[in-house]
């Protein structure tokens, strides 16, 4: 049996009291507990408040997963997603970080960032993988706290993460504002257009826009915006050109701006700018001198007429002071008392064009308008163009309109009182004209016209009338022949010569009071006539001799002579009918044309005439008059001689008698024979080729004349001719002067002739000689009368001498 071990006193190895009995290992669970509690407390303490955000829909929002981000840093997480009462909206409960919680105040905005694919690119791509997140935006100031928010559908334009200059853009009536469109400056996107909204009066669209910093300094009061959306195609000399800013703006629109005038200060937030249609108009709007912000007023027109369009002029006393910015209809039963549609036009008035005394500004313009309206100032519609029917708005002063005090200047856009328009209704006028045309008795007119035409037809078809042209042609050729004759052509020349003499004579008469002398001469002539009177007593004997002579003449073989003359005439006729002769008139005509041209040239060089005139006048005064005086003296002497001669008329008559007797004894037969032979000779002469060639020569001569005239006209001869004609002119003037005295002279001559007539009446009227003498005297009388009339004519129209008319 094993020995039982001795009982051993067992002593605790370290049986310490108190703390010694407790193991230090307990510190570890205590520490763990402390850490756990600490962590628990800290996590509880760090928990921020829960906010609720209402969204229209909860696409992509997940519980415990969707983050709330601020500046792309997660500051919270969605803890729960639920519906609001009535299932209208989705409410996301978001626990936000405690640190940012105070800043999440009433002004905070929240929106869901989703992947977005647009023309400008892809945004929010990160959310494709990670899921959507909620983005929050709030400022750095602690404001009024709230825990309930309403989420936005889209990202707001202004957010603290992208600071920028906030401006407002206003589209023109026909412009467009695309939401979220980029704003470019020299092709770089520097801003963005926000959500566009319609202005309270639905006149135009307005949108907020942001110019991101640091580009905000680019915007000054002179900055102009324009629409760059779409593209423009221009075809010019340099070819076709398609212009668009970028593909993005081509699709979704864009706005560009530029500051055309440097030196402006940066504008403050909230400045309003107008979007111009294109760059050009934007540029123009800057350079429109001192244009300031326009004053907008409304005008409601009762006239329901079409034609007032956007951009139509607004005129004050014919001066354009603005334009129509928008046109729309308005139904305001409260204001007008009926449901009729009225035309409301928004007028943009440029204050700088009103000529204000003060600084042009919209308020100053408004005050000006208000003052004028109290005086009866009204707007009305007026026709701008009759053709197109376009209208304009016209301001005018009306007397009848009572002062209108309802011009409310406090509203956003004041309303101008209007008056009835002055519209020319072109359509109505044209309609009236057409009606009048319609009412014209066209049928009756047509009947009368037809009657007239048939009568005319009958008249024209009359045979006599049809023969008339032939006769007229014959008559005309006769006249042509007459006019073409040398005699007729020579008449002016002769007349000219005669008149020159008369001129000289009359000038002398005028100068030396020769009329008296002439009177004496005429007295002498009268005496002579008396002498004639007495001498005529011896005439019967003479007459009997003459009678005998005549008898003898009667017995002469006149038939033969006449036949000869007839032949001569025939030859002449033939000659005239020859082609050369026929061609003469044409040459003549040409020559006359030349003459005419020459004369024209002469007339144009009228200045020379005066000199020549003076020269000739001096000549006249120096020599011609002296000579004339001598001539007239001599004429007087001659007249006296006549007088004395007439005294010797009885003797003369006796001599006549003797002559007659002698003539009776003369071999008249032989004379006639001679004459006949002469005629025959003439005939032969005319019949000769040489004579026949005469017209051709004449024609040649005329051509030469023509050439000479040309030379004259072209050469310096014209000046000489000028002078010559000037002298003729002065001569004519002298004639005119002389003609003053002519009537008296004529009277005297008339008296003389009357006396002579009376003297001759004394003769036996039945006597042949007496009759002849009577005829002769009558011829003289006629010649005198003709001279008198000529003188009268010349007196009336001295220049006719030169002009030949």
């Amino acid at each position, binding site marked *: 049996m094993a020995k039982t*071990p*001795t*009982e*051993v*006193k*067992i*002593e*605790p*190895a*370290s*049986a310490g009291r108190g703390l010694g*009995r*407790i*193991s230090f*290992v*307990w510190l*570890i*669970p205590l520490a*763990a*507990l402390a850490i*756990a509690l600490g962590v628990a407390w800290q996590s509880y303490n760090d928990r921020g408040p829960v906010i609720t955000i209402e969204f229209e829909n909860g696409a992509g929002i997940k519980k415990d*997963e969707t983050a709330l981000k601020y500046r792309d840093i997660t500051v919270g997480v969605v803890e729960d997603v639920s519906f609001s009462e009535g299932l209208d909206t989705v409410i996301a409960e978001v626990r936000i970080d405690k640190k940012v919680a105070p800043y999440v105040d009433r002004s905070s905005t929240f929106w869901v960032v989703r992947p977005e694919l647009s023309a400008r690119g892809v945004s929010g791509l990160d959310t494709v*993988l990670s*899921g959507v997140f909620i983005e929050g935006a709030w400022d750095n100031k602690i404001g009024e706290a709230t825990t309930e928010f309403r989420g936005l559908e889209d990202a707001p334009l202004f957010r603290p993460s992208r600071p920028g200059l906030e401006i407002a853009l206003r589209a023109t009536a026909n412009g467009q504002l695309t939401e979220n469109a980029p704003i470019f400056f020299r092709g770089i996107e520097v801003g963005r257009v926000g959500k566009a909204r319609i202005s309270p009066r639905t006149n135009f669209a307005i949108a907020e826009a942001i110019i991101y910093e640091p580009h905000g300094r680019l915007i000054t009061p002179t900055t102009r915006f324009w629409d760059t959306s779409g593209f423009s195609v221009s075809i010019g000399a340099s070819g076709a050109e398609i212009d668009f800013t970028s593909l993005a703006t081509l699709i979704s629109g864009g706005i560009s701006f530029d500051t055309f005038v440097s030196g402006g200060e940066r504008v403050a937030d909230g400045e309003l700018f107008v979007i111009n249609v294109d760059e050009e108009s934007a540029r123009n709007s800057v350079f429109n001198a001192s244009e300031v912000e326009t004053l907008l007023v409304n005008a409601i027109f009762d006239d329901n007429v079409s034609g007032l369009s956007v951009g139509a002029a607004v005129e004050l006393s014919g001066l354009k002071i603005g334009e129509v910015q928008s046109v729309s209809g308005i139904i305001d039963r409260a204001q007008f008392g009926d449901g009729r549609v009225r035309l409301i036009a928004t007028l943009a008035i440029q204050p700088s064009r009103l000529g204000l005394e003060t600084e042009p500004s919209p308020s100053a313009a408004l005050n000006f308008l208000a003052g004028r309206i109290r005086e009866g100032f009204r707007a009305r519609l007026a026709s701008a163009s009759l053709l197109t029917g376009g209208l304009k708005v016209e301001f005018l002063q009306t007397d009848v309109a009572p002062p209108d005090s309802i011009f409310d200047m406090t509203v956003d856009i004041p309303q101008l009182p209007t008056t009835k328009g002055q519209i020319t209704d072109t359509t109505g006028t044209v309609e009236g004209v057409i009606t009048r045309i319609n009412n014209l008795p066209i049928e009756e007119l047509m009947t009368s016209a037809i009657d007239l035409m048939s009568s005319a037809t009958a008249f024209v078809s009359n045979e006599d009338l049809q023969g008339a042209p032939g006769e007229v042609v014959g008559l005309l050729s006769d006249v042509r022949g007459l006019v073409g004759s040398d005699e007729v052509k020579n008449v002016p020349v002769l007349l000219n010569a005669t008149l020159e003499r008369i001129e000289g004579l009359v000038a002398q008469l005028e100068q030396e009071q020769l009329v008296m002398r002439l009177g004496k001469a005429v007295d002498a002539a009268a005496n002579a006539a008396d002498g004639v009177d007495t001498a005529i007593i011896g005439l019967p004997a003479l007459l009997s001799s003459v009678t005998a002579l005549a008898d003898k003449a009667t017995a002469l073989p006149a038939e033969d002579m006449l036949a000869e003359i007839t032949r001569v005439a025939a030859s002449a006729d033939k000659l005239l009918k020859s082609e050369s002769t026929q061609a003469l008139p044409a040459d003549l005509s040409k020559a006359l044309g030349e003459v005419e041209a020459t004369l024209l040239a002469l007339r144009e060089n009228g200045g020379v005439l005066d000199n020549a005139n003076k020269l000739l006048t001096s000549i006249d005064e120096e020599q011609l008059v002296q000579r004339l005086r001598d001539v007239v003296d001599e004429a007087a002497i001659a007249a006296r001689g006549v007088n004395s001669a007439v005294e010797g008329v009885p003797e003369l008559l006796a001599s006549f008698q003797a002559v007659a007797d002698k003539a009776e004894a003369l071999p008249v037969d032989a004379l006639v024979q001679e004459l006949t032979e002469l005629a025959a000779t003439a005939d032969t002469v005319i019949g000769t080729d040489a004579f026949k060639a005469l017209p051709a020569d004449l024609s040649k001569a005329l051509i030469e004349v023509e050439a000479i005239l040309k030379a004259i006209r072209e050469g310096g001869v014209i000046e000489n001719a000028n002078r010559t004609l000037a002298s003729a002119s002065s001569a004519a003037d002298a004639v005119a002067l002389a003609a003053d005295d002519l009537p008296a002279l004529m009277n005297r001559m008339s008296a003389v002739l009357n006396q002579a007539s009376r003297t001759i009446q004394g003769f036996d009227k039945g006597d042949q000689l007496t009759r002849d003498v009577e005829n002769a005297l009558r011829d003289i009388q006629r010649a005198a009368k003709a001279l008198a009339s000529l003188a009268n004519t010349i007196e009336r129209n001295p220049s006719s001498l030169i002009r030949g008319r």
Partner: protein
Amino acid sequence: MSVAQDIPHVTTAREMGVVGCLRCTQVWPVGTETCGRCGKALVSRDRKSLQRVWAWWIVGFLCYIPANMYPMLQTRTLFQVQQDTIVGGAIELMTHDAVGIALIILFASVVIPLGKFFAVAYLAISVKRRNSASFQQRQMLYEVVEYIGRWSMIDIFVVAIMSSLVQLNTLASINPGPASLFFALSVIFTMLSAQSFDSRMIWDVQSDAAGED
């Protein structure tokens, strides 16, 4: 008592007045302060053993709570991030008809750690009072707990291996969640707790009982 009576009484070293060195197993008479051979302090019974057991046990259990609440794995694929707790992941695997794997995970991560907690607690309580289990069973239980404890780390190994292998950047990646740390700590503390248990105390109860008898 009846159970104790069935088992033949074993005379302990303490009853024989000796104490064994726990390091070099040299036996010394009781009262010897240090081992004359290896120099280790000699104690017949570690009086603070149970305190240490309970202390580690508590810390381990504290760590086990977040290990189950927080996600163990964070699986990030192209389109989503999936975070799974231990139990949640096992349930998900079961829904994907991977019941076997799910059971293994549940066994290794839930059953074994919890079993250890219960076993250690049972042993610690049993040394103070009588119970129905025999000394040998309890010794066996202690040995099993100590042996199996290290295998609980298999979860951590899986997480560590997957995290290091599946790192395809943006396409997919697996990262350990916060629970893995707590789980590892829990395993460590449980093992420490088990080691702190002085198994000789199991037999003291028997000897006390025998002494009473």
